């Protein structure tokens, strides 16, 4: 019982203590405590502030953001109940058979859409004499392939696309929402470390809306008749990185020792061969 009381007290303190007080507790001139995987977020008292806007009146979506996509299990993280993702039988079988040690991401390959990890990413707007021509999505820990291009100056996808990890993206504004339409994906990346697959028929639509100063919502639609029996609608939420921070250099292949402790060599993914 006493342990429970302590635990509850700790939880309350952890949630309510402001960052400044936390810094005092640990001290700046003492040995520092370090969070692992804990990317600092915007302070709670700033989250509900107004949405900052660009000179053209559009919401500033820059970020950097943390979250806003899938990671370990897209089905649950996207707001569905276990078993609700309408996977075709072959896709469910593939997902069940895949092992996390084989996921391409752990071998420093790209994450694909809509995957994120606990590290920051941002939208980088490219304004030229023709206006907003491209938006780049930059992931600090992408892993390989850190940037993804959204063509704001195109309204149609090319009809001769080579399948790629990030596909071909075109974007437009619907009011304050940035809509990104992407096709042309390869079949290599996994939606999550659980191994949720897709085919090259994949078509995604992201609808990004900054609902307040500290929160960005991704209403995400998947259309892949090769994998799902119907269109899938998911919802993810990103939080703003602490405003004094930005993306840092990250070179995944520098010293990747994944697998050594567990006695395996990291895989580069498994194909969807089971359906064929």
């Amino acid at each position, binding site marked *: 019982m006493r342990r429970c009381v302590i635990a509850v007290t700790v939880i309350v303190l952890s949630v309510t203590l402001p960052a400044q007080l936390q810094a005092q507790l640990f001290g700046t001139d003492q*040995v520092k405590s370090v969070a692992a995987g804990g990317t600092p977020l915007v302070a709670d008292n700033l989250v509900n502030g107004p949405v900052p806007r660009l000179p053209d009146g559009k919401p500033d979506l820059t970020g950097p953001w943390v979250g806003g996509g899938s990671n370990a299990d897209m089905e649950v993280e996207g707001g569905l109940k276990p078993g609700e993702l309408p996977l075709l039988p072959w896709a469910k079988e593939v997902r069940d058979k895949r092992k996390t040690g084989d996921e391409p991401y752990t071998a420093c390959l790209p994450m694909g859409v809509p995957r994120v990890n606990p590290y920051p990413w941002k939208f980088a707007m490219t304004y030229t004499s023709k206006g907003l021509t491209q938006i780049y999505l930059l992931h600090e820990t992408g892993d390989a392939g850190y940037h993804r291009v959204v063509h704001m100056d195109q309204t149609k996808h090319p009809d001769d696309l080579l399948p790629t990890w990030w596909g071909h993206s075109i974007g437009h504004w619907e009011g304050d929402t940035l809509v990104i339409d992407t096709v042309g994906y390869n079949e290599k990346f996994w939606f999550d470390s659980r191994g949720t697959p897709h085919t090259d028929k994949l078509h995604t639509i992201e609808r990004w809306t900054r609902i307040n100063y500290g929160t960005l919502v991704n209403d995400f639609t998947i259309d892949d008749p090769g994998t799902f029996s119907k269109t899938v609608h998911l919802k993810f939420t990103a939080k703003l990185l602490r405003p004094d921070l930005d993306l840092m250099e990250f070179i995944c292949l520098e010293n990747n020792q994944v697998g050594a402790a567990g006695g395996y060599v990291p895989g580069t993914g498994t194909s969807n061969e089971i359906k064929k």
Partner: protein
Amino acid sequence: MRTKIKSGAFMAFISLFFAVPLIAHHGFDTEYDATKKVKLTGVVTKVEWLNPHMRVYIDVTDANGTVSNWNLELTSPNTVRRQGWGPKDLLAGEKVIFEAYAGKVIETRGALAKISKAETPDKPLFVAGGPEQPGFPKQ
């Protein structure tokens, strides 16, 4: 010399500040054994500020005088830097107390859970999330 860890109030206090995954780049369970948590003392031989994850190497001497070099994984160097740990905060030659989850196959390749300098055991330099924490991703 190895002892099982009992979660104390201080550990819980620190951990809940940072209730986040230790291994963000890959799953915990594929490499580490959540039931094999150890607490050891040793001497740092190397601190690697390398991607995708930092590593600290520590020589541990057992009761028979046999020395084992532990290779301990942290999180990304960027994450550790953002939290204020700099390149001078832990150096080769320093005596430390650490807790880690042992590797499933190679025991001395562990996931670092907590590390303190021997002279300041109550001021941990690094406290990681772990599988006993709320919110730790299940693989």
